[in-house]
């Protein structure tokens, strides 16, 4: 099961940030060369959140004691013991991350199918809403689940839906060729949608 967690554009090289997918807290990060990765958000050393860490080159380092981890989640270096070759057993739990259609998708282990591809669209923005997925989609009048489609402010949109909790989700919004004015109107409509959903408004 793939979960969309961010717009590709919002995670440039050397960035790490916390995301939630399938009920798990993950550190999402992109290496200098552009490789995207999603790992358990917990350093095996002393449990610090890796999403507070820093990216150097192709490795993610923990902010607490600087242990760094390579592409496979294996520990590369323990700064307190620079001459020590870290044992193979020190590993961060790695999830599968992939990109399709301007979105970053995450799955706990390699699914059979590649992530859904929304087609050639433009990223608009992501927003988090403090309301359940189903309530938000029906209030917006959008159809579908992971990739929901419809119209907002008169603009055709595709929304990748990321459930975060029973009363929280994130929407990653893509559009076709829309002009600047339409994009602004759509963005305002999304803010209004969030306010209404968070105020508990239900679809008529």
């Amino acid at each position, binding site marked *: 099961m793939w979960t969309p967690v961010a717009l590709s554009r919002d995670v440039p090289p050397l960035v790490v940030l916390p995301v939630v997918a399938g009920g798990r807290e993950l550190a999402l990060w992109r290496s200098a060369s552009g490789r995207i990765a999603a790992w358990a958000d917990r350093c095996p*050393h002393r449990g610090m959140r890796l999403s507070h860490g820093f990216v150097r080159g192709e490795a993610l380092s923990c902010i607490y004691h*600087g242990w760094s981890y390579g592409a496979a989640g294996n520990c590369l270096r323990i700064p*307190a013991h620079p001459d020590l070759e870290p044992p193979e057993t020190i590993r961060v739990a790695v999830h599968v991350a992939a990109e399709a259609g301007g979105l970053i998708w995450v799955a706990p282990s390699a699914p059979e199918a590649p992530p859904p591809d929304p087609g050639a669209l433009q990223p608009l923005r992501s927003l988090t809403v403090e309301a359940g997925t189903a309530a938000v989609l029906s209030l917006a009048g959008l159809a579908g689940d992971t990739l929901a489609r419809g119209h907002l402010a008169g603009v055709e949109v595709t929304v990748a839906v990321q459930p975060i909790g029973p009363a929280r989700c994130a929407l990653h919004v893509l559009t076709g060729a829309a002009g600047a004015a339409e994009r602004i109107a759509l963005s305002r409509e999304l803010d209004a949608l969030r306010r209404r959903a968070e105020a508990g408004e239900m679809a008529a």
Partner: protein
Amino acid sequence: MTSEAIRNEWYPVALASQLGPEGRDTRLLGEPIRVDWAAQGRPRVRAADGREMATRLRYGHIWACPGTPSRELFDIPEADQPGRRLVDVGVVRVKCSPLRAVENFLDIAHFPFVHTDILGAEPHTEVGKYDVAIREEVDEVWATKVHFYQPQAAKSAAGGITTEYMYRVPAPTVSILYKTCPPRPGEWDVITLFVQPLEENLCEVWPWMALFDDETPMTDLIHFQQTIFLQDRSILENQLPRLLPLDPGMEIPTRADLTSVAYRRWLKRRGYTYGAQLVAA
């Protein structure tokens, strides 16, 4: 109800210099307490039912024992040494286990990453061999011969130096750091962390210092220590699990973590589990 091993310890509950006549309503081990002054400047600490606890006024702070003290409040002989400046740093509230706060204070390997350019800096990240022992005769954890390169070891240190430290845990929520004192070779600066456990996942931390430093303005000394601790707080509030694991398996210690390993073992063997978790739990 917490166990006797937990209730019979001493805990800091207020900074004497900041305790006004109105007193202080706070919490200890998950229960409300009230700290105020009784007659003749004697501190008084009462549980919700009005019961008075054993108290001490020492090291700038008011200490209380909710049970029956298993021993006298630990001694810091340096506190009475002439020529030292005693620094009340104040309080910082941290959403973490009190034990995680103490353990972090015993850790040097984080200096280059968390206190960058103050207490440590890359590439000087190596933690050399040091000695750790549970001193049975006093029932305390001690780490000695700890050396670390510091770009700015203290307010009174102008440039980078290799600093020597000793660490001491005289009570489950107290840590004392002894550190080379640049203006007075042969003496140790004393920096403590007194931790008041409000809940298993919430504490108030009272750093306190006894220094040989006549130059630095008091506000700078306080500010330096607060800056350091606020950096630590961003770590402490983001460690998982929130409770300190006392059994091995959940975390991976290395040689640099031997003080932490001894501290956890010492807690476990005395049955001190407030703010801790056992793997089986």
